[in-house]
């Protein structure tokens, strides 16, 4: 073969493989409002930065007529590239090739790029769009999934792992996203479930649509399996890019610093909190009034919204924010909000991101459903995660900090490095109403006018204990600060904590109340 022919042959092979499942399958994909796998990668990565590997990998299955089937790239595209200059490893399942079904060669391409990401110390991004196991490959297909799950687990806490579900992701396959740090979903496109609507209908006789069972909205609001919800793929890709700027490449690095920016004008931080402790406000206003450029990237905004978590920057440094949200369920701790906060705290600790906690909660959500759902075990996860974390931990008590909730929300006693309280803080064993009713029960019952005495005792208790000063007198609070001083205190606390180096007893691993 002449040199020219050799090169022409190469480009022909490459173009053929890059066409994926061919014109018919591509038409179908587009008709569903979905982008093609390679276009998705290109939309996420910096222009021209994508470098693809393993384009010519082929399956070795010879059963059920598979020996006659050629599957370009075996249904998955893998490579490396950059996002706003940050290197990442990426794979995207190609639904146009045999429905994105996962065979052994497909899985081995994924595990190879995962191994690369681990060795190189760069984040891994996976785009899931697959009908599931390639049935013809039998147990080899299951082996492929298992090998991916194992690597997801090995990579956990070493490199950030991001899953973008842009199509079906069902059965065992959905456990890979579940093992990763952040799951992105898109309205009407993402479908995640273990058993689909058809199985549920035949076995259980229950009828439900795919969207209602495991659509993007359900996974973002009801189950909490997804972290970021978008209306379109384009919006989703912008979210992914933004997230990557907040997190480090791996667990040996810190997140990149950005030029410091002041919060945007227009937040009167002293006027956000209502005078009455029983009235709501949006804690995100407090966060935005304090962080750089008022830029707060909220995570799991729709699920367990009584707890607000997300990333922000202080003087250019990434911080992880955990805050009770009085706007929703009064900001109580419950099963879901505990799970949500605990996992986020562990992510921040694994990736050297300081934690800033804003406290304003009435305690735990009362109810039979909560107790029976194991609020004890789930609530314990927050205690575990905060106690275990060795990154700088800074706590600001805005208003209510009662009982177990006070302890759980990164109190001094769980190892907070700095605890600040606003003058509006009420740090007590429980709210004035409850406390007065118990302490003065006998007196109130015996009084001529029990209601008047009760009110008086509630008032007395509130004046004496519902303040930050008892806690400050005991050194549980380091400083009582005005709301306007909060950013300054936080920035300073982060800056003096840069070299923080705290150690925990040597162990294989702890046994958290999963």
């Amino acid at each position, binding site marked *: 073969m002449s040199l020219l022919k050799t090169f022409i042959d190469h480009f022909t092979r490459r173009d053929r493989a890059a066409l994926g499942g061919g014109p018919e399958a591509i038409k179908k994909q587009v008709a569903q409002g979905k982008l093609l796998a390679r276009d998705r990668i290109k939309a996420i990565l910096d222009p021209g930065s994508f470098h693809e590997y393993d384009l010519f990998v082929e399956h070795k299955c010879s059963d059920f007529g598979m020996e006659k089937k050629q599957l370009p790239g075996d249904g998955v595209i893998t490579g490396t590239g950059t996002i706003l200059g940050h290197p990442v490893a990426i794979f995207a399942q190609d639904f146009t090739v045999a429905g994105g079904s996962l065979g052994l060669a497909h899985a081995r391409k994924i595990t190879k790029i995962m191994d690369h990401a681990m060795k190189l110390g760069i984040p891994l991004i996976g785009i899931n769009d697959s009908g599931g196991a390639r049935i013809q490959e039998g147990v080899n297909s299951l082996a492929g999934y298992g090998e991916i799950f194992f690597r997801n687990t090995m990579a956990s806490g070493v490199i950030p792992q991001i899953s973008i579900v842009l199509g079906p992701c069902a059965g065992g396959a959905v456990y890979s996203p579940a093992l990763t740090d952040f799951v992105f979903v898109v309205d009407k496109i993402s479908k995640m479930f273990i058993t689909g609507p058809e199985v549920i209908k035949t076995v259980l*006789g*229950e009828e439900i649509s795919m969207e209602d069972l495991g659509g993007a909205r359900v996974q973002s609001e009801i189950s909490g399996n997804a972290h970021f919800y978008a209306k379109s793929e384009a919006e989703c890709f912008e979210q992914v890019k933004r997230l990557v700027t907040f997190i480090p490449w791996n667990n040996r690095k810190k997140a990149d610093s950005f030029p410091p920016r002041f919060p945007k004008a227009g937040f009167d931080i002293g006027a956000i909190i209502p005078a009455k402790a029983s009235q709501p406000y949006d804690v995100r206003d407090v966060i935005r009034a304090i962080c750089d450029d008022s830029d707060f990237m909220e995570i799991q905004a729709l699920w367990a919204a009584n707890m607000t978590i997300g990333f922000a920057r202080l003087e250019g440094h990434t911080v992880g924010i955990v805050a009770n949200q*009085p706007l929703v369920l*009064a900001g109580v701790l419950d099963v879901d909000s505990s799970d949500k906060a605990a996992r986020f705290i562990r992510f921040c600790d694994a990736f050297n991101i300081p934690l800033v906690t804003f406290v304003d909660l009435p*305690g735990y959500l*009362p109810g039979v459903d909560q107790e029976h759902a194991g609020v004890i075990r789930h609530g314990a996860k927050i205690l575990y995660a905060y106690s275990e974390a060795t990154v700088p931990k800074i706590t600001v008590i805005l208003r209510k900090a009662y009982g177990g909730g006070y302890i759980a929300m990164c109190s001094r006693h769980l190892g907070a490095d700095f605890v600040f309280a606003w003058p509006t803080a009420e740090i007590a064993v429980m*709210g004035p109403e*409850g406390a007065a009713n118990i302490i003065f029960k006998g007196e109130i019952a015996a009084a001529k006018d029990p209601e008047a005495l009760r009110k008086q005792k509630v008032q007395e208790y509130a004046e004496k204990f519902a303040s930050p000063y008892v806690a400050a007198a005991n050194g549980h609070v380091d400083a009582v600060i005005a709301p306007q001083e909060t950013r300054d205190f936080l920035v300073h606390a982060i800056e003096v904590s840069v070299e923080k180096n705290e150690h925990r007893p040597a162990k294989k691993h702890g046994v958290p109340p999963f």
Partner: protein
Amino acid sequence: MSDYKTLVVDGTAYETTLTRNYLRRKPYRPRDPKRLAAFIPGVIRAVKAEAGCRVVRGQSLLVLEAMKMENDLVAPADAVVKAIYVSPGDTVTKGQLLVEFE
């Protein structure tokens, strides 16, 4: 905003909004010893008692096949069967009432 609801914690009524999951809570109902319900969805394969039968605790009443397993559903106590609401071949959902005792 006027669409705030109240949530009572430790005697204090807080103004706040509620979540979909909170509103979807199922109220607690204590177990009724006079009713036997399906603990898992499946298909009734056999019915071994009828209304008016006197049964003893642990006696097999129904066979419920679910997830490829045949489950023996037994009488929770010595009792008289008031009614059996299923026949062999019926598909039942979780929590569906199967047998009532007097």
